[in-house]
C-alpha cells in the first residue's frame, strides 16, 4: 500500500512493486473514473444485497425509470438541473481548495430570494414573465452569493475554517426557510407558501405543446439551459481568464501564488460569492421551474450531492453536467427506493471509490524479479 517495498523476503521469484508515476497519461483519469464508478456500483449492489434487497432489480429500476424513454429522460434532466448548478458551485470552489460544503444553504437562500420577488408583492401579479424571471434569477443569485460570501469574508478576514462556517450556515438557512414558510408566507397554516402565479414559472417544454405536440408532458424547463450556460461560463472563467489562472494557481500552490503577488483574500471572497451565486441559481431554478412555491424540505440534499458530483467530474465543468445527469437518475429513481438512506449511502460509496482511484492512479504497479 505504501510506496516503499516491504523488507520481508518474498517466497515468489517476483513481486508487485508500486512506484510513483512521474507523468499522467491522458487516458488515465478517464480509466480511473470508469473503474471507480464500476467498483462503486458493485459495492452498492453488494450492500443492497446484504440488507436484503435485490440489487439487480434496484439497478434495473434506476435504469428504466431514468432513461427508459424521452419522457423519463426529460424528468432526469429536471432532476439534474439543480445538481449541475451545485456541482459547478463546488467544482469552482474546490478548484481553489476552498471547501465550500454550504451549497445546500446557498441553494436554500437562492430559493428564498426568488420567492421574495414573487411573494413580497414588489412585482405586481400579471407582470410579464420577461420581467419576473430575470428578477427572480437576479435576486436568487444575489442571496446565494451573499450566503457564500459570508463564509468567504470570515475566511479572508479572520482565517475561520470555511468547512465549519459553510456547514453552520446550512443549518441557519434551513431555519430561515422554515420561519418564512411556517410564518409570514404560510398558506393557511400549512408549511408552504401559496403557489406562484404562472408568470413566475420558468417555461417548460410542455408549455409549448400547442406548437410541437411531442413536447406535451415534458417537464424539462429553462433552468436546464441556464445550467448549461453556467457550465460554459465556469469553463471559460477557469481556463480562459486571468482570474481563472489565479484561482487555479492558488489551488495548486498557494505559496507560489502569494509570491506572484496574487491577493488570496480577495480571490477567496470572489470565489465564495460566485460559488454561492451558482448554488443560489440552483434554488431559483428548482423553485421557479419545478416546485412553483417555497416549501420546507424541497431539496433532498442537492447541495451535498454537488460535492460528490464535483469530485466525480474532477472539477471539469462539462464533466459536472454528465455526472449530474447520472445522479439525477439516481435521485429520480431513489424517490421510490426504500429505505430512504440508500441514495446517501451510494453517494458516499461513489465518493470513496473516486478518491481512492485518484490516489491509486498516482502509482503504477510493476512486476519485479527479486
Amino acid at each position, binding site marked *: *500500500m*505504501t*510506496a*516503499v517495498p516491504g523488507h520481508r523476503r518474498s517466497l515468489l521469484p517476483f513481486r508487485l512493486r508500486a512506484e*510513483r508515476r512521474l507523468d499522467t497519461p491522458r487516458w488515465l483519469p478517464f480509466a480511473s473514473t470508469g473503474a471507480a464508478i464500476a467498483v462503486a456500483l458493485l459495492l452498492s449492489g453488494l450492500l443492497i444485497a446484504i*440488507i436484503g434487497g435485490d440489487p439487480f432489480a434496484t439497478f434495473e429500476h434506476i435504469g428504466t425509470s431514468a432513461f427508459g424513454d424521452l419522457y423519463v429522460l426529460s424528468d432526469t434532466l429536471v432532476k439534474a438541473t439543480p445538481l449541475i448548478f451545485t456541482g459547478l458551485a463546488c467544482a469552482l470552489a474546490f478548484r481553489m481548495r476552498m*471547501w465550500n*460544503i454550504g451549497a445546500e444553504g446557498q441553494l436554500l437562500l437562492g430559493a428564498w430570494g426568488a420567492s421574495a420577488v414573487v411573494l413580497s408583492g414588489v412585482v405586481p401579479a400579471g407582470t410579464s414573465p420577461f420581467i419576473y424571471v430575470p428578477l427572480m434569477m437576479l435576486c436568487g443569485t444575489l442571496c446565494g452569493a451573499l450566503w457564500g460570501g459570508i463564509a468567504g469574508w*470570515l475566511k479572508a478576514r*479572520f*482565517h*475561520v*475554517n470555511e*468547512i*465549519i*462556517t459553510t*456547514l*453552520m*450556515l446550512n*443549518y*441557519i438557512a434551513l*431555519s*430561515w426557510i*422554515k*420561519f418564512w414558510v*411556517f*410564518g*409570514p408566507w*404560510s398558506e393557511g397554516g400549512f408549511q408552504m407558501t401559496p403557489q406562484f402565479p404562472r408568470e413566475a414559472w420558468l417555461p417548460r417544454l410542455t408549455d409549448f405543446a400547442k406548437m410541437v405536440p411531442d413536447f406535451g408532458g415534458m417537464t424539462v424547463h429553462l433552468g436546464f439551459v441556464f445550467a448549461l450556460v453556467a457550465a460554459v461560463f465556469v469553463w471559460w472563467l477557469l481556463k480562459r481568464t486571468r482570474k481563472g489562472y489565479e484561482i487555479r494557481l492558488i489551488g495548486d500552490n498557494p505559496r507560489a501564488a502569494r509570491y506572484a503577488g496574487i491577493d488570496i483574500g480577495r480571490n477567496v471572497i470572489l470565489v465564495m460569492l460566485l460559488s454561492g451565486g451558482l448554488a443560489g441559481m440552483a434554488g431559483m431554478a428548482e423553485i421557479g421551474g419545478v416546485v412553483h412555491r417555497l416549501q420546507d424540505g424541497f431539496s433532498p440534499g442537492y447541495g*451535498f450531492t454537488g*460535492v*460528490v458530483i464535483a*469530485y466525480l467530474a474532477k472539477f471539469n465543468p462539462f464533466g459536472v453536467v454528465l455526472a449530474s445527469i447520472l445522479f439525477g437518475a439516481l435521485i429520480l429513481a431513489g424517490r421510490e427506493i*426504500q*429505505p*430512504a*438512506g*440508500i*441514495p*446517501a*449511502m*451510494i*453517494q*458516499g*460509496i461513489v*465518493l*470513496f471509490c473516486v*478518491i*481512492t482511484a*485518484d*490516489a*491509486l492512479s*498516482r502509482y503504477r504497479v510493476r512486476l519485479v524479479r527479486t
Partner: protein
Amino acid sequence: MNLELILAAGVTSGTVLLLAALGEILTERSGVINLGVEGMMFVGALAGFKVSVDTGDPWIGLVAALIAGGALAALHAIVTIGFQADQIVSGLALTLLGTGVALVLGEGLAGGMVGPRLPTITLPLLASIPVIGPVFFTDQSVLVYLGYLLVPVIGYWISHTRPGLHLRAVGEQPTAADALGVNVYRLRYAYTIAGGALAGLAGATISMVVSPGWNSTQTTSGQGWIAVGLVIFAQWSPLRALIGAYLIATIRRLTIDLQGPTDFFGIPNPFFTYQPYTFFLDMLPYALVIFIMVLGAREAIKRRVGAPAALGIPYVRGERGM
C-alpha cells in the same frame, strides 16, 4: 425555568460534543483530519440503541457503538493513510456513507421505543456542594462521568507521557518521528480508529442518554460538525473542548426551554405566542459556533498556536515532506 436543571441538562447533552471532540482531538493530533464525525456519530447512535434494545443490555450497546464508530474510522484510515487519498473528501464521503447506512439500518425502528437505561450516579459528597453539586454530580449518566474522566486522562496522555510524545511527533514532524523509530502509519491508524470509536460513543450518548430512542434524521442534527468546529476552537486541547462543549450544549438546551413559558416578567414570550419565531432560536447554537470560531481564530493568531503541522498531509515514507 430552574437554572440548575438547565445547566445540568446542558452538561448531559454537552457530553455528546465532548466525547466526539476528544476523539477528533486524538485523531487530529496524529496528523489525520477526519470530517466524518457526523457519520460515525450517526452510526454509533443507531448501533448503541439497536443493540441495547435487542440484547436488553445497555453496556453491550455501548460496545457496539464503539465498534461501529471505529469501523467507519478504519475505512477512513485505510483510504487516507494507506492509499493517501484526500482526507477532507474522504471525511465527507464518510459522513454521507454513515448517514445512509444509519438510515437504512434504522428503517422501521419506531419512534417512542426506549431502550434499557444506563445507570445514573449521584456522588455522595460532591453532590452537596451548592450549584456545582446539582449541576455536575446529581443523577448524571455514567457517560457524563466518563467525559469528566477522559478530559484529564487524555490531556495527561498527550502532554506528559511517552506515547503522547510520539503522538504529537507523528502529527507535527512525521519524518523526524519515523527517523526515531516511531511507526507513523501504525500510530495514525490507531488514533484514527480510537477517535472514531469515541465519536460512535458520542452517538450512543444521544440515542441512549440525551434523548433516548431512535429519531431517524433528527438524531445528530449537525452535532458531529459542531464537534469538528469545537476542536479548532479548543486549539486541540481537551480542557478547552470541555468548556466549549458544555457552553454550546447549554445554549442549545436553553433554546428549547425558552419556548415553554407564556411570558417573561410580564412581557409576553414571543416564542410562545408566535411559534415561527422559535426558528430563530434554532439558529442560535449554529450562529454561536461561527462566533466562537471567529474568537478562537483571532486568539490563535495572537498566541501563535495552530493546528498540528502535518494535519491533513499524507505521510509517504522516503519522500521529501514535512
